[in-house]
């Protein structure tokens, strides 16, 4: 923009020797004499008219290619075609179809892509290595084409290979990729392919091959049973980590995704535990502190845990290395809780009512003076730092409504993404593009459920879970 306008303005006007001389010969005599006022007026009017016919920002003199600036496009799902992956052997027939379906679902679930139904396809892919008839895919306005093939060897190992094409450019986007894994992990294979496609088109990492830990709830509202559960990001493969013998709250994945922090009432009061997901072994993290501890969260290093501890009716923020001694980070008579590390581990955002109402603050990871960043009406809580480090998601309560919102780390550009009877507990997808949270419906029969929303506020979706669910926490991308 700036460059364009600058070039236009500085474009040198070419010299016109002959033409200029001719013009002087024709016009100059009368000009030199003294052009009557009405002639000057006429020339001025013509000049104005002509000037009006030329756009102000446009270059009249083109000193090169024509330059235009396009500032308004469209924001809509990108249509793609995904012919069913080709099974390269009989054992892969069903697997190829299933993988194709999961890939399509992953892409469509983002709200950024739209699959063109197979019934609308004109062309077909008969061989993974056959050249692409782009015209056939252009005809159905497929802007991206995904082809693939699946094979299963005798040991039960599945191999998936795929290619991504930019149809209108008539070329391949990136290079073909081959992935292999156990047949029973075919969903992860599909998610991996989807992540690659997503990344190549959007330019940011995917989040499909990830998991979510949450609290599965059952029973009436006044006698709710809660269990820790983990599932794929899309709600598949639900596995329960604890039974319903005790109340569990606020599970949080470690940065490597192999452990989970959570709060349990197993001892009658809230206490923090850490569980290794692989073998479901749990360990009390704060058993020797003799106080209520809750709201834990891992630091970026995976070894430091920051949490809240209530002693003598006062709640402050503490941090400790697993197995180490706790370090008090805040020391005020108000309630400080819900701490969350920045991606670089240097800062902590938390909520506090030290100002009289619940607001968000940022302090150094070592403690010290905190800086308030939320100033809007209502109350702010449960802040979570984005994996990108640029935004902070939060829960806001204002005028009887709950919202999930985001703001910059300095508190600017606050945007509310949702609004309902009760929205709370946001958690970021690994790529920082999507937020998952709990939404609970009103009334005695109200049930909590998990929802996702794009950081732009679009594409609000409910996650399918076998039962009511709350307190989600997104894992990082799986290795």
């Amino acid at each position: 923009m700036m460059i364009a306008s600058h070039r236009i303005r500085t474009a040198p006007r070419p010299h016109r020797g002959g033409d200029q001389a001719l013009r002087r010969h024709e016009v100059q005599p009368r000009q030199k004499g003294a052009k009557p006022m009405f002639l000057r007026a006429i020339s001025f009017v013509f000049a104005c008219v002509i000037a009006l016919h030329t756009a102000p920002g446009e270059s009249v003199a083109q000193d090169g290619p024509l330059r235009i600036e396009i500032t308004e496009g469209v924001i809509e799902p990108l249509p793609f075609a995904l012919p069913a992956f080709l099974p390269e052997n009989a054992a892969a027939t069903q697997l190829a179809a299933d993988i194709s379906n999961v890939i399509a679902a992953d892409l469509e679930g983002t709200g950024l892509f739209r699959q063109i139904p197979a019934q609308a396809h004109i062309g077909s892919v008969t061989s993974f290595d056959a050249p692409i008839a782009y015209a056939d895919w252009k005809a159905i306005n497929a802007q991206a084409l995904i082809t693939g093939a699946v094979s299963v060897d005798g040991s039960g190992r599945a191999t998936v290979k795929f290619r991504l094409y930019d149809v209108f450019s008539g070329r391949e986007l990136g290079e073909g990729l081959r992935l292999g894994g156990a047949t029973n992990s075919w969903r992860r294979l599909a998610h991996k392919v989807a992540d690659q496609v997503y990344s190549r088109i959007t330019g940011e990492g995917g989040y499909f091959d990830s998991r979510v830990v949450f609290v599965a709830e059952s029973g009436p509202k006044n006698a709710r049973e809660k269990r820790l559960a983990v599932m794929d990001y899309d709600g598949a493969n639900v596995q329960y980590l604890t039974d319903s013998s005790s109340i569990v709250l606020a599970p949080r994945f470690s940065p490597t995704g192999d452990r989970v922090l959570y709060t349990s009432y197993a001892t009658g009061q809230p206490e923090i535990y850490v569980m290794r997901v692989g073998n479901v072994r749990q360990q009390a993290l704060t058993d020797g502190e003799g106080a209520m501890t809750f709201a834990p969260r891992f630091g970026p290093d995976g070894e430091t845990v920051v949490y809240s501890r209530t002693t003598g009716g006062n709640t402050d923020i503490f941090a400790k290395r697993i197995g180490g001694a706790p370090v008090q980070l805040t020391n005020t008579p108000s309630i400080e809780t819900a701490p969350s590390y920045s991606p670089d581990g240097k800062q902590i955002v938390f909520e506090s009512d030290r100002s009289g109402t619940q607001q968000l603050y940022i302090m150094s990871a070592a403690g010290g003076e905190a800086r308030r960043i939320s100033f809007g009406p209502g109350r702010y809580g449960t802040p979570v730092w984005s994996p990108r480090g640029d935004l902070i998601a939060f829960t806001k309560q204002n005028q009887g409504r709950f919202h999930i919102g985001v703001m910059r780390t300095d508190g600017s550009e606050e945007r509310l993404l949702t609004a309902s009877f009760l929205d709370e507990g946001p958690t970021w997808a690994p790529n920082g593009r999507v937020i998952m949270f709990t939404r609970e419906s009103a009334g005695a029969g109200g049930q909590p459920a998990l929802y996702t929303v794009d950081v732009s506020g679009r594409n609000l979706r409910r996650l399918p879970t076998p039962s009511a669910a709350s307190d989600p926490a997104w894992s990082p991308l799986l290795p």
Partner: protein
Amino acid sequence: MNTGVKISGAAHAGLILWMLFGGFLSFDRREPMEFTEVTLISGEQLAAMQAAGSAAPDTPETPAVPDAPSEPESAPETPAPEVQPEEVVAPEEVVPEAPEVAPEVAETLEVPQADVTAVAPPAPTAPEAPDGAAVVLAPEAAPAPRSAPRIAPEPSAPPEPDAAIADEVQEARRPDEGTEAAEPEEPREATAPEAAVTAIQPDATPDAGGAVAALAPTGSPRPASRPRQPAPPAPAAEPVQDDPPDTASQQAPADVAEDAIAAAVAEAVAESAGGADTSQAERGTGSAPTGPPMTAGEKDALRIGVQKCWNIGSLSSEAQRVTVTVFVRMNQDATPDTASIRMIEFEGGTEAAANRAYEAARRAIIRCGSGGYDLPAEKFAQWQEIEMIFNPEQMRVR
């Protein structure tokens, strides 16, 4: 002016005296008569109305209403005659004064005519009146002062006249007086200078009569169309010369105005368009049609044609912050040459994000251009190469 004031004062004084001794008394008599009658009638009627309950019979009082109108008629009549005579008298008195002023003006006109003939040429912007006067008077006054010396001082005045005009005048003079007829065609400014410049004047005087020599300077400049007339110069030089100068003096302003307007318009177009035309003409290839400059509407059509296919919804938030400039060479059927599309520069993000943004822009150009953009074929040279700046600032998700 003093005389006029005196006359006016005397006239006003006479008028006042006339008013005092004129029909002033007669008007006074009429007015009281009518006013008294009206007041009496209305009072009686009102008393009768109050005494008698029924007012119906009184309705005939309406005739009294017609009396009322008679009052206004009399009222205006009284003042009207008084005022009108005053105004009429005043102009009558002024009229005689006017002739006194008129001669003064006539004197001023005469003086410039004779002397101005020589002075007029240098003043081009002078009003038309002096020009016409000079032309008319020239033939008459010229014979006497026509002496060559007067022409000599003038030569220095005319620098402006173009060489082309000067040449034509010289040729026209040699044959006969008819040549002089051609000279008068030029604008009066140039005529004087030419006569002077053509020091031939002394040579011409012996050949032609003094009157002819005098005419030469008067019928000065003339447009190019005149030169054809030299043929008919055969007839008497003087009458012919008289006509041309008149026509010249009359047509000159119109012709000059038209030419000037055309020139002014051309100049305005050239100034406003700047070097666009020429630069584009120079830029255009020999075979590619250049046509007039691309209008804002045509550029908007192209912009709209591309932007409806520019989809950034599938881009990362980082890629949505990147502004990319894409070069594309167009085919003559207004479709993009896909092989020519390339990213020239980007701003606002990493190279990886810029590549994604560029791909989205590239898709937009190709997809919406597959059927050809709405571009004027006659201006192909101007849109043969295009740089499109894709700036998502207004659309991006922060």
